[in-house]
Structures are given as C-alpha cells and as structure tokens.
C-alpha cells in the first residue's frame, strides 16, 4: 500500500511538472526565409526583439530558418513542407508559390485592414497577389541600376551618362584609360535577368502588355510577338560587347562585388538588394560609390525605375501560431519599417524613413513616389520558376556569346537567342501538358 501511494504521488509530481512546463512553454513562430545577407538576418532579429518588447504579455519565441537564395529556395521550402515542417511565416512572393496557395497553406489577406491602411499602389500589391487576392505582407522593394566608382569617374572626368550612346562612350573612355568598365556576374541567373528588365518590363507596361508573361506561359504569344525582348537583347549586347573582363561569365554576385569594390572595374550593374552587403564590405575604407539608373535609349529622358517587392512574407494558416504570426507581421509593417530600413539599407514599401536613411535610398523612394516607375506587380502574372529558369538560360547563352564570342546552345545573334528562348518556353509548355 505504501509502495502504491508513493507511486501515485511520484506520478502526480511528474504530471504537475509536465503541466507546469506546458503552461509556461512559449509560443513559437518559425520563419522560413532566403535572406542570406547578414544585415537582413540582423534586421529580422531586431524586428522580432522589438515585437517581444512591445508585447511583454506574450510569451513568444522565434526560430529563423535561412535557406540558400535564388531558384534553390523553392525546392528546399517545398521539401521541408512535404516532410511535415509547418512554419508560421514563409518568405516569398505568392505568384511563385501557387501550389502552396492551392493546397490551402497560405492565408488570404485580401481583407486585411492593416495592409489596406498602408495605401500601397496596385503595382506594389500585385507582387503579393495571386489571382487577384493578397497573400503576403510586403515589406520593402528592389530595383537595379549602375553602381559606379566615384573616384574613377572623377579622375577620368566622366559625367554621368544620360543616354545609351553616352554610356557606351563612358565604357570606351574607361577602356582606353586601361580601366575595365564593368564588373559583371553572368554566372548568376539574376544578373542576366535584371540587365533586360529596364527595357522589357518598362516597354511592355508602357504599351499595355500587362499580360505578357501570362500569354508567353500559356503559349498564346511568342517572344517575337513582343519587340521588347529583341530591343533588350540588342541594347544589353551593346553594353557587353567589347569590354567584358575575362571573368564576366564565370563570376557570381559576390565575385563581381569584390571586383568593383577593389577598384578593378569602374561600374557594376547590380540590384539594390545588395546595398547592405556593399556597405558592409566597404566599411572603414575610403571607397565611395554612386548609383544611376541605366539609360537604355538616346531620348535623354529620365530612366524609369523598375520596382519589385523584395522582402514579402506569407502566413501559413495551417501552422499552430498563424494568428500570432499575422500579429507580428502587422506590427512589422506599422511600427518597424524604419528600424528594418536602417538595419538593412532597404527602401521600405511604405516609404518610411528615419534620420539615418542614406541619400541613395531617399532618392529611390523619391523616384518611386514620383510615379516614374514600371512595377512587376502590374503584370497580370509573374514568370513561374520554370519559365524564369528557361529565360535565364537563354540570356546566359547571349551573355556568353557577347562576352567571349563563343556560341552557347547555338546562340550567336539576337535572332538565334530569341529562337532558343522560345524553344525553351515551348519545352515548358509541353511539359505542363503532361
């Protein structure tokens, strides 16, 4: 009897500990993201800390899981979810993750009052939409253009080019002075893609071809039906041919940053997402850089700013702490945009600034506010991962030909590049029908 009593008491004690532990266990919010840059990870942590500080009554903890960037993110995310991981917050633009939406993972935010109150444009919201519904919280935006070494430009007496012809003249002048004009990174698919966007996106939207990507993916239209691709390849080809370094087609983003920052090349065509990395790399040095939007014609008018939502976050409604995750995201959008921008050097989608916001970000925000923009979100649908991959393969072949003179996949002219691109698109369309 004594033994039984001891056993019951011991069991009660263990159970009470378990219950106590369960009651005290913090609510965990897991964030899947592809922000590999240290400053963005630090920014996320800072926002999380701010959320905890602002909500002392909530017992919450965060787990941030970073995946590698680019086209590898989706496979890794998909595998994790298929294996049973159920994160609360998933970074990404919804149009690229349609299967997650169709399988009911992603929360519909169409009626979200916090997002509505931000008063964002249709272009901004298009990037976080899928089939007309909002599925993600947009945080900041990205664009691309030319980063230039101000010291080299000053020493060579170079004015900022206003036209495409002037830009080519700058390249020639630098080349003649024994300075490589460009630090290029065409081994990276993002690079070849952003070189084309100022023409392809801008011209397509200006001409009302908002459904261009949708029609290319369905096979209703061919790339040759849109002259912007031909023009984009020609103009970009002129920027490349004649002054490519020997590492142009084997460099990736970080390699090109090193070439630029070390002064081995005067210009770098880069996305604004990397401002933070460049700032970190030059900290403590006397290196100075400027930025201008790449002129793509000879009209002399102000180039249009391409805008695409960069950091956007979806809430997984199948996750345990989905409601808390929504609360966190809303806190981020309303209370932490300045903090995020300061930590990451990213321009906030809401236009939020602080006294620390650098001039480059202020100028990007000013241009965006002026409306002289071409927003990816204004297209009816984005290119899917498969089409993006096919598109980038064709563009890479064009870069290889222009930089090295070597034919890749039969690409040796604008026409053959367009033909190869269409062949790859047809391949995707045929596979989709299987």
């Amino acid at each position, binding site marked *: 009897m004594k033994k039984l009593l001891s056993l019951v008491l011991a069991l009660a004690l263990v159970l009470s500990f378990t219950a106590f532990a369960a009651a005290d266990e913090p609510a965990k919010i897991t964030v899947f993201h592809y922000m590999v840059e240290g400053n963005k990870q630090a920014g996320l942590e800072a926002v999380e800390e701010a959320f905890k500080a602002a909500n002392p009554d909530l017992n919450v903890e965060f787990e941030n899981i970073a995946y590698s960037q680019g*086209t*590898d993110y*989706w*496979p890794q995310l*998909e*595998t994790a*979810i*298929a294996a049973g991981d159920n994160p609360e917050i998933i970074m990404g633009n919804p149009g690229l993750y349609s*299967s*997650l939406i*169709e*399988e009911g*993972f992603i929360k519909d935010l169409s009626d979200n009052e916090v997002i509505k109150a931000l008063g964002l444009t249709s272009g901004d919201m298009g990037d976080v939409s899928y089939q007309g519904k909002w599925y993600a919280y947009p945080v900041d935006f990205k664009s691309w253009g030319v980063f230039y070494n101000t010291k080299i430009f000053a020493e060579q007496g170079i004015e900022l080019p206003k036209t495409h012809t002037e830009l080519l003249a700058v390249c020639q002048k630098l080349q003649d002075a024994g300075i490589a004009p460009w630090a290029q990174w*065409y*081994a*990276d*698919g993002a690079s*070849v893609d952003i070189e084309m966007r100022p023409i392809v996106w801008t011209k397509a939207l200006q001409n009302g071809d908002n459904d261009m990507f949708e029609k290319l993916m369905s096979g209703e239209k061919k790339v040759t039906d849109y002259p912007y691709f031909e023009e984009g390849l020609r103009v970009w080809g002129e920027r490349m041919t004649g002054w490519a370094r*020997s*590492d*142009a*087609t*084997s*460099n*990736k983003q970080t*390699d090109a940053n090193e070439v630029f920052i070390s002064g081995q090349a005067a210009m770098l065509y880069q996305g604004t997402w990397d401002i933070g990395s460049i700032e970190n790399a030059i900290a403590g040095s006397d290196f100075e850089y400027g930025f201008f939007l790449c002129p793509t014609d000879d009209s002399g008018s102000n180039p249009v700013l391409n805008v695409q939502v960069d950091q956007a976050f979806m809430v997984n409604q199948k996750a345990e702490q989905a409601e808390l995750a929504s609360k966190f995201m809303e806190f981020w959008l309303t209370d932490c945009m300045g903090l995020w921008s300061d930590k990451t050097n990213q321009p906030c989608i809401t236009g939020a600034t602080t006294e620390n916001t650098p001039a480059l970000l202020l100028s990007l925000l000013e241009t965006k506010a002026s409306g002289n923009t071409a927003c990816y979100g204004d297209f009816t649908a984005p290119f*899917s*991962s*498969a089409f993006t*991959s096919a598109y*980038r*393969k064709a*563009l*890479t*072949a064009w870069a*290889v030909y222009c*930089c*090295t003179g*070597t*034919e*890749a*996949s039969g690409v040796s002219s604008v026409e053959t590049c367009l033909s190869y691109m269409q062949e790859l698109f047809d*391949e*995707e369309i*045929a*596979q*989709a029908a*299987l």
Partner: protein
Amino acid sequence: MTNTLPSRKLKAGLGAKTHLGNLCFLLPTILLFSIVVLIPVIQGIPYSFTSWKSIVSTNHPYNGLANYKYLLGNKYFRMSLKVTFSFTLQYMFLSMLFGFGLALLIHKASSFNNVCRTIFFLPFTTSVTAGAIIWSYVYTDIYGTLTGLVSPLGLPNQIVPAMALMASWRDMGYAMLIFIAALQTVPKDYYEAATVEGANVWQQFIYITIPNIVPAFTTNVTLLLAWGLRTFDLPSVVAQNMQEGQTTAMYIYQSIFANNKASLGQAAAIILTIILIVLTQIVTRALRRLEVEA
C-alpha cells in the same frame, strides 16, 4: 555409400548454419538499406506514371507512359545524358590517372608517405560547394590572370572538362587509397623472381603489378562510374544556367522541385537508375573477367 550420407547431411546442415549466421550479420545493413533506399525507390515508381506536379500536392492522376515517351523523345533530356556520359568518362579517366599515379609514388610505407596520403585524401573530405569556390578562384584568378583567357567555367565548350577536373581533384585521394591497398598486397617474391629472370622495371610493372591490382581497378571504376553518372552538386553550383553543363541528375532535380513536374522528374530518375545499373553491371563483369584471366 550409406556411410557418406550422414556426413553430407552434416555438411549441408553446417553450411546452412553458416549462411544463416552470415545473414544475421548482414541483416541490420539489409534492413537499413531497405528502409532508406529500396522501399522509397519502389514506392516512387508508381508516381512516374502520373501527372503529379508539385510535391506538396496530393493530386496525382494516372497518365500512363506519357512521361517516359516524352523523355525518350526529348532533346534536352538526351542532351543531359550526353553531358552526364561525357563528364563521367573524363572524371573517371582523370581520377584513375591521378589516383594511380599518386599511389605508385607513395604506396611504400614511410612517415613522409603517410603525411602525403593524408594531404591527397583531404579534398575528399571537403564539401562540394567549398571545393567549387576554391576552383572558381583557381580558374578565374589564377588561370585567368596568368593566361588572360576566359575561365573554363564561363565557356560552354570547356565547362564539362573543367567540372571533371574539379571532381577528380576531390575524388583522386579515394581512388589512390584503393590502389595503395592493392599495391601493398602484391607479393614481393614476384618482383624478386622477375629481377632474377632479368625483367626490367617496366616489364615488372606491366606483367606483375597491373595484373595483380585489377580488382582495385574494378572497385574504382564501379565507384567512379556510379558517382559520375549521378553527379548533381558540382554542376548545380557552377553551371546552373548553362545548358552545356546540365547533367541528368540536375534535370531530375529541376523537374521535381524547381519546375513543379515531380512525375516527369521521377520518370527521368528511373531511366537514369536503369542506365546506371546496366552500365555498372557491364563494366564490372568485363573487369571481373580480366581478374580471372590475370
């Protein structure tokens, strides 16, 4: 006659016991292999006859042999097989060449040779990504700077040999160890007898060393062939957007994950597995015949 029967039975019983004992030792490995490899592979086969898109989707309608028909007639799948075979041949040749050369140099026991073996084996322990970054610098910053030429990783007609060299740098140490183990088993008496008979070093190498280490060639060829045919990591790091560097394993990965065509990728994986099994069998049998002749 009658006297021999009980002894035969006894022998048979002992043989069965030995087999059973051996099986017991193998059982954990067989179980683990079945759970981790065999059963998932078999479970995956039916998906190749469906039009399953994303792996998070639960919808996979049957579409018969459509995926297989598509792949067998598809230019880019065939191209990926060509790249894979080309890469595998170059990688096998270079790994065996470097591995065997190094083994001949340092197979004798000495402290210096032990250090050398460790150094040459080290690349095998580094991650592919780290190796790829190192070689990117070698090709761009050393080769490119010295010669003024474009890095082979940036040229479609040089990317496969460039990747084969990177992969053989990584795996030559492994091949070397297998060759060293084989070289150390060749009886010294053979060389002594050959020397007495007047055979020179070259003749000893051709008629004694090579025939005695054929099993090491078999092992290396089998391993390198399998590793080469399923190469994925290296091209995915250095040739993601270059069609001329796309191996079949990359085609499979892209189809299943990046492109949301899981069933197509599954069918491609099955075709590659069949090719791998058939080729490995042919090569291994051919080499084993040489072993018997030796």
